[in-house]
């Protein structure tokens, strides 16, 4: 199983189409790094993006430098996955 320790999901609220484009550009800047769980759609909808731990600083700096407001929706994905796996094992027992 791949390990996602330290990976985070950031919830970003883009103000306008320009900011949505900046988010779409991120997929090109960081190929196969950022994983959109909710892709850039329209300013009224949040964008949820999974960022590997190794890219977190770069990506957060990018968001800040472009005035993109974000919150941390999932602080450490691996914690959720471990809980899920434990729950499945318990249910099986």
């Amino acid at each position, binding site marked *: 199983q791949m390990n996602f320790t330290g990976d985070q999901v950031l919830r970003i609220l883009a103000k306008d189409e320009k900011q949505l484009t900046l988010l779409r550009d991120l997929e090109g800047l960081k190929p196969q790094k950022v994983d959109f769980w909710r892709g850039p759609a329209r300013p009224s909808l949040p964008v949820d993006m999974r960022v590997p731990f190794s890219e977190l600083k770069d990506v957060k700096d990018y968001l800040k430098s472009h005035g993109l407001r974000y919150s941390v*929706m999932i602080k450490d994905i691996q914690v959720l*996955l471990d809980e899920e796996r434990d729950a499945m094992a318990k249910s099986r027992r």
Partner: protein
Amino acid sequence: LERSSSSFSYSSYHTLDEIYNWMDNFVAEHSNLVSKIHIGNSFENRSILVLKFSTGGSNRQAVWIDTGIHSREWITHATGIWISNKIASSYAKDHLLKKILNAMDIFIDIITNPDGFAFTHSMNRLWRKNKSSQPGISCIGVDLNRNWRTGFGGNGSNKNPCSETYRGPAPESEPEVAAIVEFITNHGNFKALISIHSYSQMVMYPYGHSLEPVPNYYELFNLAKDAVKALNKVHGIQYTFGSISTTLYAASGITVDWAYDTGIKYAFSFELRDTGQYGFLLPASQIVPTAEETWMAIRTIMKHTMNHPY
């Protein structure tokens, strides 16, 4: 492995084998209503199995429901399993459901992307696509919800094989999609299709590949509104609704656009609940409430389909 579906936990997540085993027990225990149909094989040669709920007749009007086309969205498979059990266990008591099943058949494809689903258990929990590969291309997998013929290759999909929304080399190039296309086309009498995804809390109808409204836009708008209202009554969860391209984003080569253009007037895509904390990694404790509310929306759509034959 479980000996009967009654010991199966509908409020837990399960592996591919456990679900296939449940299917066999479930069909055996409800053989008067449920049968299992093998509609094809996946890229890695796993069976694609559909549950058919029928009270008889031949080639009746039918409703198609699929879950798990994006393999990491485990809440959708779990919802499909719960709904299957709900149909079988409440059929005799639920007067409306009995009317629906006396008029139509219901087909549920619970594991629409078996290779991807197996991979989420074995290697990568966050895998979304199928597992197909092409010579000379390093990245694996096609987004099965971008591989359908209608709108294929539009700007709501990606031609980069490494992208999560990679559309594939050609429409219906993926066996998981081709199997459904062949089955629905050969059956020829499907009247509604519901494709269940996660997450965003939306009930949407075509088109995704263009902003142009479909001919019966107004009927679909009102039906989606009724479905969302029925869903909200269960646990108070608010969904938005509308056409895919105006509610979410441009998406090309998607299931519901193909279904609509094939003549299935009542085609809907669900994006299940978003608690704002887990994305599609909903804890198992949310399986039953999510399935309960989703079922009421689906039941609303099926009732409308039954009452508006075409």
